[in-house]
């Protein structure tokens, strides 16, 4: 098949202040292909795509669509050029149905009474009779036709505004053509993440997009949902659409794409055919050096029950069960992984243990190794009370700059979060925290201008090193980490895995909430799978299968909503 270029970028450069997000990027996208855009966080993938979609405007360079140079100043321009983007964070109206969201913002095709009138006159002039009697009749007919035009316009408008049926059938056509599985009458707030994503994709297709850009579409999906999405993407490709998929997961790149474009620090490194490369070569291009992608997992030693959670139930703000009868044991010298679709109760579980979440029932017991494994009840205790009981509990929360650290404060003041009460009299002590900050910067190779720099100015990986460093410095016996590598580059991720492993070898009971199943399987000794607030299974990390965990992640919901939405889980 002959390849036609759908989209071409030439020498695109974009800077934000001192930061160069994209530098002289050249990229070609053909019709009927899937191109993966691969790169670490902060390598400029999303910025580049935002320029194609009119959200940013490039500082330099040209964009060609279908061979013509274009200027894309707003998302509207991009839409006119048949470019559609599915963002990482969905932009849907919660209280509307899927169909409403899809047709939202669509304009009626222009209908000008003046122009139509001219057409009618022109047509009538062709059959203008000669006889005076017929002339009058002809004039009357013409007048009637002309005066009807405003009413025709009104009719069209009414049909467009209030009779959406014709459009819904068009949506259904698109939906069945590519094999989407969606109920168009369902409200967005009733939908799973995967369904919302489907709505976004149909919306873009409905607007007639020929070039689709998907920003990390798999980050929030289960393995089964990913397979489904990929099948749809392939069908769209075969239909002649051009697709760019942004991702940093290598196995997905290999599975879905025809070609791979690699970005590193804003520069375009290479575009290669997927069939001619492998994961190792891609990693090297992405990171810029050879890297070992193995996580060393030691056998647990000296295993003792450290934290026992029994029948824990937590209600969320609406009084629904965020956690339902959760029981498990975290043991010293072991990493317990927690898997599940985002929002299955992971956050509530960790916050309940840390004393930040009101609980509705159950038990949280801690066995203190410094007091001869004496039992301590942590139920309904505040963080201060837990600390005063001598429980060495460290917690790396999911929201780093909103909970774990204060973005506007410098490294020293952030160290102080854990120790400021130790100062003398009413005064704070900044000397010890300063030493700790310097220590962490040195040991964990934090890249920062100094310990007096606000942490928000640090890159994601360095922010996380500061947070994990501080939590580890407290010499914990239980270490909880929620998505500690989210948004981190490969090197930083492996630093964090290494730190967690070190803590495990020191005899700490580590609880790791993760989203990348491959990592969970490689890192954890046991994996607890949460599904809609319930424990749907606990599996051994060694020898666990991704597909099995994926099934457990959705299993309970299938049982519970039996019959109603059977197709959704198929």
């Amino acid at each position, binding site marked *: 098949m002959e390849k036609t270029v759908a989209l071409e970028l030439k020498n695109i450069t974009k800077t934000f202040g001192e930061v160069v997000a994209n530098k002289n990027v050249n990229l070609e996208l053909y019709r009927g292909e899937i191109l993966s855009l691969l790169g670490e966080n902060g390598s400029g993938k999303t910025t580049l795509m935002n320029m194609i979609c009119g959200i940013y405007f490039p500082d330099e360079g040209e964009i060609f669509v*279908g061979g013509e140079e274009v200027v894309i100043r707003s998302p509207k*321009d991009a839409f006119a050029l048949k470019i559609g983007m599915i963002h990482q964070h969905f932009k849907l109206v919660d209280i509307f149905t899927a169909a409403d969201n899809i047709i939202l913002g669509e304009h009626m095709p222009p209908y000008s009474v003046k122009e139509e009138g001219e057409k009618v006159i022109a047509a009538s002039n062709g059959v203008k009779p000669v006889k005076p009697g017929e002339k009058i009749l002809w004039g009357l007919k013409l007048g009637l036709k002309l005066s009807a035009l405003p009413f025709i316009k009104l009719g069209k408008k009414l049909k467009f505004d209030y009779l959406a049926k014709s459009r819904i059938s068009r949506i259904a056509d698109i939906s069945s053509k590519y094999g989407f599985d969606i109920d168009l009458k369902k409200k967005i707030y009733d939908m799973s993440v995967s369904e919302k994503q489907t709505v976004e994709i149909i919306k873009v297709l409905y607007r007639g997009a020929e070039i689709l850009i998907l920003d990390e579409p798999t980050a929030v999906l289960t393995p089964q949902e990913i397979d489904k999405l990929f099948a749809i993407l392939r069908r769209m490709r075969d239909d002649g659409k051009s697709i760019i998929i942004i991702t940093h997961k290598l196995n997905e790149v290999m599975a879905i794409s025809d070609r791979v474009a690699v970005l590193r620090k804003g520069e375009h490194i290479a575009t290669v055919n997927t069939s001619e490369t492998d994961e190792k070569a891609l990693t090297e291009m992405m990171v810029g050096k050879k890297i070992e992608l193995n996580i060393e997992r030691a056998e647990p030693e000296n295993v003792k029950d450290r934290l026992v959670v029994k029948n824990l139930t937590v209600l969320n703000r609406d009084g629904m069960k965020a956690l339902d009868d959760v029981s498990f044991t975290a043991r010293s010298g072991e990493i317990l992984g927690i898997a599940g679709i985002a929002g299955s109760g992971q956050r509530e579980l960790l916050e309940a243990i840390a004393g930040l979440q009101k609980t509705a029932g159950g038990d949280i017991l801690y066995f203190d190794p410094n007091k001869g494994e004496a039992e301590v009840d942590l139920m309904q205790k505040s963080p201060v009370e837990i600390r005063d009981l001598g429980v060495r509990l460290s917690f790396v*929360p999911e929201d780093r700059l909103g909970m774990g650290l204060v973005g506007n404060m410098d490294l020293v003041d952030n160290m102080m979060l854990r120790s400021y009460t130790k100062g003398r009299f009413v005064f704070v002590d900044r000397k010890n925290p300063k030493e700790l900050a310097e220590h962490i910067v040195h040991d964990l190779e934090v890249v920062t201008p100094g310990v007096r720099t606000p942490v928000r100015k640090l890159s994601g990986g360095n922010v996380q090193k500061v947070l994990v460093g501080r939590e580890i410095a407290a010499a914990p016996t239980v270490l909880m980490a929620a998505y500690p590598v989210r948004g981190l580059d490969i090197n930083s991720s492996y630093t964090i895995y290494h730190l967690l492993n070190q803590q495990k070898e020191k005899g700490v009971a580590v609880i790791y909430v993760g989203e990348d199943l491959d990592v969970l399987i490689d890192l954890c000794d046991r994996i607890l799978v949460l599904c809609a607030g319930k424990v749907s299974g606990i599996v051994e990390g060694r020898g666990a299968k991704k597909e099995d965990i994926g099934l457990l992640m959705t299993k309970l919901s299938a049982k519970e909503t039996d019959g109603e939405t059977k197709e959704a889980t198929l």
Partner: protein
Amino acid sequence: MTVKNNAVAGAVKTSHKEPLFHLVKRTDIATWKKWLIRVVAVVIALLIAGIVCAALTGGKNFVKFYSELFSGSLGTVWRLQVMLQAWAILMCISLAVTPAFKMRFWNIGAEGQTLISALAAVVCIIYFGGKIPEPALIMTMLAFSVVAGAIWAVIPAIFKAFWGTNETLFTLMMNYVATQLVLYAVNIWAKDGSGTLGVLSHGSFDKLFGMEYIQNVVFVTLLTVIVFVYLKFFKHGYELEVVGESVNTAKYIGINVKKVIIRTMVFSGVMCGLAGFLLVGGSPSPTVNANLVGGRGFTAILVSWLSKFSPIAMIFVTLLVVFLERGATQAANTMRLGDSGAFVDIVVGLFFLLIIACEFFLNYKIKFRKKEGK
């Protein structure tokens, strides 16, 4: 093929028109540039004020405005003293609102808190004046003022901490209550039916330690040091900063957020109480009326924000504001621009407008379209 045609049509619509300019967010800005932009903003504000002045006086007096500005605030020792006195009050209220703002508690009730404290001080003078020795009277006034300010500030804080009410509306409403209370009290006390309270013969500690007019300056300077240390080196200061930055972080490390909110507002209210006390007792002619604070409770909010909550920066911002106020008052008097204070409001308003607007240029850079032929 139709696809391509449509794409071309789209291209024609938007062909080769780069936007004339676009905005680029700055990540960093050189210190000298920052100050240059601010100085330019102040200069432009003064220029516009001069033009307004010239326009109001029929095209003359453009230059005279500036000479009046300086002579009005710094011209004589007495004028300098008046300016410093005004500085002390504005500074005191600015300091008072700062801890609350640092905690992101939008207390816009400093006006009412100060006014109710002044009222409390006058209550002492009316009922104890002449009956107890003057030093005892002064101490009672101080105690009454401070307690009144604290009460007025802590009510919205309690409601915020326990029931999550909106503190902005709450503190604003408390201002009106304070104003009405003062009007009510003055009506009772003013026996001549004029509705205004004359100068009271007791309760003034002006000329204390032999200092005329500027004893307030000494107290407020002392307070500045205290607030600076409190915010920077006290555990309390650290706690309220964490609460302000993120309530989630505060809970995460075990700070009692309710306690911090209430404690900080009490501190804030105590300082407003002090301002009210200084307004009455620190003046050679102690009295109270509904206009005593005169909007300084609101000006203080702007001052506090412009200083980025730093007590040291606040000294200078406050100085600049009172300089403009005194100078513009003098200019308005000599040029007969009316004594309603409207002209002063114009000048000070222009200053705030420009200095706040210039923040935009501190945060963004404007990039113009490059010349053709790239």
